[in-house]
């Protein structure tokens, strides 16, 4: 037995020694920040990517023609230092600034941008439909100029040009005739970081681009590791115990609320995030009746949902265009008031022939798991709010996301609940998909109004921002009057970091996290 005990003790000592060895400080002192996310990589091809997380990685290794001002939802200069539009508003000319270099030292040339855009136009990736909807051709008359021809005039083209498909790619990195979703060597560009290693299931390792034009701050990290988690609970626990330095997308309201109270952690409200809204299918009764839609808008009390269900972790939304964007405002408050107005709703419903004996009955659908565990509670409260009048009877229905999204954006439900996050940071992207008559049916709304189309088309084509603001103000007033959808709340995204290692981070409402702007201690 003594021999067995010795073996056991020796085994424990060996395991303990090995574990202790792993806890010893690293030999080299590389300032590393570990960022946890629950997102996943869908594609690392600049000519294909169409997801928030892919774009975040791309924005950290590369720079588009125009780019976001750090910490804001505004678009400023990217690799282009200036641009102008032709008299017919159909041709945009971008002038590239000097000094942009890839990690291997080679200089950026205009043909690199043309290469990415042409691949996006010819290869049918996820972004293809968006690109060909706006762009009819692209050319590089010289190494410093990119000329883009549009299908229709777009006053917001500088915003559209901030998407990843305008990022430069070196010759020979991506084949011209094929999309490469997961390039073996990762991706590089002229941005602050280069991807030196990645495993979509585990982590992405970024190291500094030694030739980055704008340089790095004294306390910026040398290396950033993006680590993937399956769920927000594990990620929240990981930042709490120090496995990671920053817990980023996507923390749910319960995690944010809990972590905000943990000593040594700082929760940062980015001010940006997805909006949530009610889809009212105007192709179906009774939602084809404007009185019904307006009555529902009168009955909705957003503050109650925000306070009772979400414990104040989201903001009520009174227009599809969230605060910070051109012409954002509280149009639904102006039209329907902030709280519930039962008598106004009842007047409208009675005008449409509904009564206590003949109540308005409709199915209200929601996905129980896709928008977090609180979705069911939101809808229980919503049901109570709508049934505050005996003239309405709501049948709550839930469906698994895979089926739900198809039915909700199709023509199957009377009313349902969806979220939206912009493709490019402009007011038009919060209005066109829902209210423009050609797009609206694809969102399960089927709204059609000539007046609205005129306003939206004029707003899209206009490049004078003051004129655009007025056009979008008019469009949103009409949007509220017609109750195209009912905006409900905006789930502001939070990041939580450890005070022990991080001093500050910069993430704006556009949810652009510039890793080089992380300030370490």
């Amino acid at each position, binding site marked *: 037995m003594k021999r067995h005990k010795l073996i056991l003790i020796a085994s424990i000592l060996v395991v303990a020694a090995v574990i202790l060895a792993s806890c010893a400080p690293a030999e080299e002192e590389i300032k590393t920040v570990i960022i946890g996310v629950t997102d996943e990589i869908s594609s690392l091809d600049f000519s294909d990517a169409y997801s928030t997380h892919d774009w975040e990685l791309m924005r950290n290794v590369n720079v588009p023609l125009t780019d976001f001002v750090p910490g804001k939802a505004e678009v400023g200069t990217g690799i282009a230092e200036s641009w102008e539009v032709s008299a017919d508003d159909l041709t945009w000319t971008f002038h590239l600034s000097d000094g942009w270099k890839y990690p291997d030292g080679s200089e950026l040339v205009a043909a690199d941008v043309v290469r990415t855009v042409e691949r996006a136009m010819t290869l049918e990736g996820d972004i293809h439909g968006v690109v060909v909807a706006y762009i009819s051709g692209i050319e590089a008359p010289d190494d410093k100029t990119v000329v883009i021809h549009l299908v229709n005039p777009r006053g917001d083209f500088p915003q559209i040009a901030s998407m990843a498909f305008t990022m430069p790619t070196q010759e020979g990195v991506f084949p011209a005739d094929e999309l490469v979703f997961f390039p073996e060597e990762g991706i590089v560009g002229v941005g602050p970081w280069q991807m030196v290693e990645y495993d979509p*299931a585990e982590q992405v390792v970024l190291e500094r681009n030694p030739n980055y034009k704008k340089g790095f701050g004294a306390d910026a990290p040398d290396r950033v590791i993006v680590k993937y988690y*399956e769920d927000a609970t594990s990620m929240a626990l990981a930042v709490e115990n120090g496995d990671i330095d920053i817990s980023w997308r996507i923390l749910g309201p319960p995690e944010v609320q809990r972590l905000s109270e943990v000593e040594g952690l700082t929760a940062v409200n980015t001010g940006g995030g997805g909006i949530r809204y009610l889809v009212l299918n105007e192709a179906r009764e009774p939602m084809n009746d404007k009185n019904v839609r307006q009555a529902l808008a009168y009955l909705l009390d957003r503050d109650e949902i925000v306070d009772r269900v979400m414990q104040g972790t989201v903001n009520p939304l009174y227009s599809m265009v969230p605060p910070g964007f051109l012409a954002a405002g509280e149009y639904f408050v102006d039209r329907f008031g902030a709280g519930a107005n039962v008598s106004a709703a009842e007047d409208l419903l009675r005008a449409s022939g509904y009564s206590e004996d003949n109540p308005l009955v409709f199915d209200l659908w929601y996905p129980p798991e896709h928008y977090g565990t609180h979705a069911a509670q939101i809808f229980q409260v919503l049901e109570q709010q709508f049934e505050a009048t005996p003239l309405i009877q709501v049948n709550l229905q839930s469906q698994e996301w895979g089926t739900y999204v198809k039915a909700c954006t199709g023509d199957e439900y009377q009313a349902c609940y969806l979220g939206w996050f912009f493709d490019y940071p402009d007011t038009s992207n919060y209005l066109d998909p829902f209210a423009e008559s050609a797009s609206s049916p694809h969102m399960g709304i089927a709204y059609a109004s000539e007046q609205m189309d005129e306003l939206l088309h004029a707003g899209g084509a206009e490049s004078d921002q003051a004129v655009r603001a007025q056009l979008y103000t008019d469009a949103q007033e009409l949007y509220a009057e017609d109750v195209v959808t009912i905006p409900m709340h905006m789930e502001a995204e939070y990041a939580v970091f450890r005070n022990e290692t991080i001093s500050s981070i910069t993430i704006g409402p556009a949810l652009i996290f510039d890793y080089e702007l992380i300030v370490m201690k």
Partner: protein
Amino acid sequence: MNISPLSGICIGSLGIALVFIIFAFLRGSPGLRSYILTRVVLTLPMVFILVTVIFFIMRVIPGDPVTSELGPRGTPAQREHMREQLGLNDPILVQYVKYLGKIVRLDLGTALVLGNRPIVDELSERLPATIELTLPAMVIAVGFGVLSGAYAAQHRKKGVDYGLRLFSIAAYSIPVFWLGLILQVVFGIGLDIAPIAGRIDPIINISLDRMTNVLTLDALITGNWRALGSALHHLFLPSLALATVLTGVFLRLSRINVIESLVEDYILAGRARGIRERVLVYKHALSNALIPIVTLIGLQFSVLLAGAILTETTFSWPGMGLYLVERIGQRDYTAVQGVILVFALSVAVISLLTDIIYAFIDPRVRY
């Protein structure tokens, strides 16, 4: 010729299994030979039925990979184009025949979402992680379960026996994802002695050269002790959670079998000869009680895989289980079929081996 880790593991495991089966076939009795033949032949229709059922279930349940990939933004034209590209517009029987044709050629197809990578490549990255998690969990579960069961039998109807029996019931009935969460909170947050999730420290991970993708093995091969320590450290909580759930069954079975053995004549004779009780329990009674436990190991293998799915999800352990959960949500038919096929083959081979071992170690068994 390049051999992926998945192919390497599969070929290696099947090779070992095959050698063992051939050995048993050649050395076994005529009854055993006939049994081995029957079992091998029956394994094929079993896998075929399973693959067929999964194929049709995945297509019958609501939702599809196109909707999952495109989300609310996808226009009808984009959806139609993608369906055509993925072959989802073919009649279901045509899809089925094509799928079977590929299986026969050992081609698991390509993923329908997230970059459309070959399934074999994706599983190659995930299978080693699952092996790294389940193997230690099984060793801990069997080791602790069997020894503590024998200990409980030795101290029957005493406090420690009641305590262990209570533990076994609790361990068996606790959902592994809940246990995992509790372990994360207690050891990760409260005591702060274990990482919450993942397979290895992200910084140490950079320095580790991966060959097999079994991180502890890679660390050993390359002599990267920091990586070995980190991998073991990260393995601690998930393997403990998974092992705990399995321990209960082994503990109870071991206890009852040792109790039965302890009243056998040969034990009484041993006692009469003055052999120490500990030797009687752990050497003589336990070795006889091991026979049904070997069978149970085979049966518990499927439970182990089911537990691994939940454990991997809780601990963000990037193995086959987590992959399966992700891809079911995305309705990635080919990926789900690939995982189920690997799981089914594993369970079939393990059950076969267990039965043969059982027949081998207990000559009384006849077929």
